[in-house]
């Protein structure tokens, strides 16, 4: 190739009017651009549709009877069940997540911890022998009350969820998802 590719095209017709040529180019680019715009815009418009969608608002869901959580300080796992919508499908009473509930000896107060690891979102499990929580993905370790046990890859303690005893005596938990990987406990909306 060398420098020949800098030469003017050999097959260029001589004597073209530069002004007219420029106008033609501009017109060609404009028409081509305008023709391509509708599919591109429609595509981008639809592709970004997920940004308009919001998750379900945080709400209290009945999770278990108080008696189902023995007052031995050990966490028990329960699914959180709620009506939910997935794009076009409506599910009635479908599991949307899981919580650990625990109660100290003689206490009526229940502690609720989200089973989602605050590090990277894996499912935290209970290690019954060492009486602690352990995440199977990156070995984050948490105390039985959800507190962080160093050294742990998780930047914060397990996420505690608001919890109350409902009118029928059942435990209600306010289910929420939180951003993972950051020290601050920040709810996803």
């Amino acid at each position, binding site marked *: 190739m060398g420098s020949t590719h800098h030469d003017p095209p050999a097959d260029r017709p001589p004597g073209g009017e530069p002004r007219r040529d420029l106008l*033609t180019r501009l017109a060609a680019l404009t028409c081509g651009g305008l023709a391509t715009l509708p599919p591109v815009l429609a595509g981008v418009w639809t592709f970004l549709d997920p940004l308009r969608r919001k998750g379900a608002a945080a709400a209290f869901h009945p999770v278990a009877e108080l008696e189902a959580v023995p007052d031995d300080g050990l966490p028990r796992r329960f699914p959180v069940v709620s009506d939910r919508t997935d794009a076009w499908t409506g599910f009635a009473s479908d599991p949307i997540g899981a919580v650990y509930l625990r109660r100290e000896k003689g206490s009526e107060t229940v502690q609720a911890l989200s089973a989602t690891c605050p590090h990277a979102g894996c499912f935290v499990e209970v290690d019954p022998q060492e009486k602690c929580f352990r995440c199977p993905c990156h070995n984050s370790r948490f105390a039985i009350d959800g507190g962080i046990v160093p050294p742990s890859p998780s930047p914060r303690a397990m996420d505690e969820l608001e919890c109350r005893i409902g009118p029928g005596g059942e435990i209600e938990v306010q289910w929420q998802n939180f951003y993972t990987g950051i020290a601050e406990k920040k709810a996803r909306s």
Partner: protein
Amino acid sequence: MSTPTPGPRRGLLGSLADFLDDRTGYRALVHEALYERVPGGARWRYVWGSTLVFAFMTQVITGLVLWSSYSAGAQTAWESVYFIQHEMAGGWLLRGIHHVMAQAMVVLLALHLLQVVIDGAYRAPREVNFWMGLVLMMLVLGMALTGYLLPWDQKGYWATRVATNLAGLVPAIGPSLQQVIVGGPDYGHHTLTRFFALHAGFLPGTLIVMLAIHIALFRKHGLCAKQPFTKPDALFWPDQVLKDAVACLAVMAVVLGVILVPALRAALDGRPIEWGHLGAELGAPADPSEPYAAARPEWYFLFLFQFLKVFEGWGASGEFIGAIVVPGLVMAVMFLMPIVGRWRLGHGFNIAFTFGLLAGAGLLTALAWREDYAARWTDTAALADVQDLLHETDGDEEKIAAALGNDPVKQAAFAARRKQWDGARHSQAFLDAVDTAHADARRAVELAGRPERIPAAGMLDLLRSDAATQGPRIFAQHCAGCHAHVDPSAPGAEAVIAKSSAANLHGFGTAAWARGLLDPALVGGPAYFGNTAHKEGDMVSFVQNDLAGNDSWKPDDVAAVVAALAAEAGFGDGLDEAVVARGRGLVADGDRCGSCHTFHDNGTAAGSAPDLTGWGARDWLVGIITDPTHERFYDGSNDRMPRFGTADEGAQPPLSAKQIALVADWLRGTWYRPAAAQ
């Protein structure tokens, strides 16, 4: 985009361009691509290939985004397309462009082919490229065919079934071929996943490779310039590109126009614009148990559909000839065009053949349309005598001949009119099916917008449990043989009611219906008991004699009974409670209604007349449809009404409990309505 200029470039961009060029040689490529010589100057007749590339690029862009929201599965395909069309931002426009551009592409293909044939651009050395073009055409048609099924609506489902059944006619491998395409012995999940893979993977992938070769070969041979030249040579960029770009813009304008014209018309008429209903249509979800008389392929395949009718009466061999042999021969002739076209006469033949083909396809399309829409312009009233004669003679040819006095002239005239009448009837069935399909589709979209959304079992499941959709069908099939269901104030209602042989059930349970029942002028008429065994029964004589202006029954009393009955049916909203209570007392009264009718605990023995407890309510309706001979209803005095929900041992009742509930809900008008319409 500036022309390469000699000398060193300055500035960061220039250096970067030099850097890239040294490593990729892109300038030479761009140069090669843009500075193609166009002998005789740029011309409009050369734009078709470029518009096709543009159309394909549009399909790739819109298709990829559609892909990102589409779910290929029998319970999710319709649902995801619904979601794209009606709920995603700009989804209607995206899908509309994809749908209309697909049709534009077929038109552009025809124009491109026509131009190539007329200009003899298939001649040496361009034969191979012509063949590539034919293969590309088949790929595009394949994508059109596979794309039609993907929304999994009634239209696509039934039309595509015909196409895959035709594939089964291919000798020897047909049945296996069909099973492979369909993804099993029946239509289902794998039909969709396969069609989707074909539509978005195999076919476009092959097309891109073939298109690259097609364009490379086109460049290698240069443009097949049309003689004589009237202008000096020009370059592809920018002269021809401008014409190409204008043509592409025109194509896009037409596509957008087709999508937006209904919106414009709505705006001009002052109607609200229904964005979700613009662009591509979405029919009711595919239902193998629901016949669809309006199944037609997309318009550009309509000529093939109509062509098959030419071979009607030939049996399977006719379909084989029409769907495989003839199209195969046509394709063979087209493949031979470059060879045949070497001679002047052959070239003439090719042009004539192509025009003949397009004219034939156009004619067949027009015929198909004419058949489908004949009822719109046929004066069926003028053909009433044909229907009458066919009725009288049961269609027996000898009897018809005898009725026409065995006069050959009259017989020929009758045969011609009979054909016209037949055509109008078929066309009406098609038009009715289109209307039903539109109504079903609208209803499906309405139901999808419920707060509960679509169940996991899919929209079809929901539609099958919808009283508004199923009620009229069940009624038409099982009830309408005797009962009318027509608003008495509607035009033409009287004739319909007069023809029926049991009560008009429109508005059954409402105050209006009960008022008519207690109207001496109506109770013995065809809208109530007039055409039944109860015509001279106790109820009719009671209403006509005792209720007609007499001291014990004042108009107020009748109104109170009407209110009480409507309240029993659950239509008591807005009625004066005191009036209802007084009416209930009158109904229960052993000297009035209660002398025959049981009403709550009035102690009248069951069986002599229908129990009016909860009259017209859902449970009451379900009960009487299930078994009108039950002592709670007509007992031994039941006229002809079948037991729809019970049967003698070993037999199946005509309707399931679910169907009975659906028809009851439909009669009562209780079904989901969107908030805005309530």
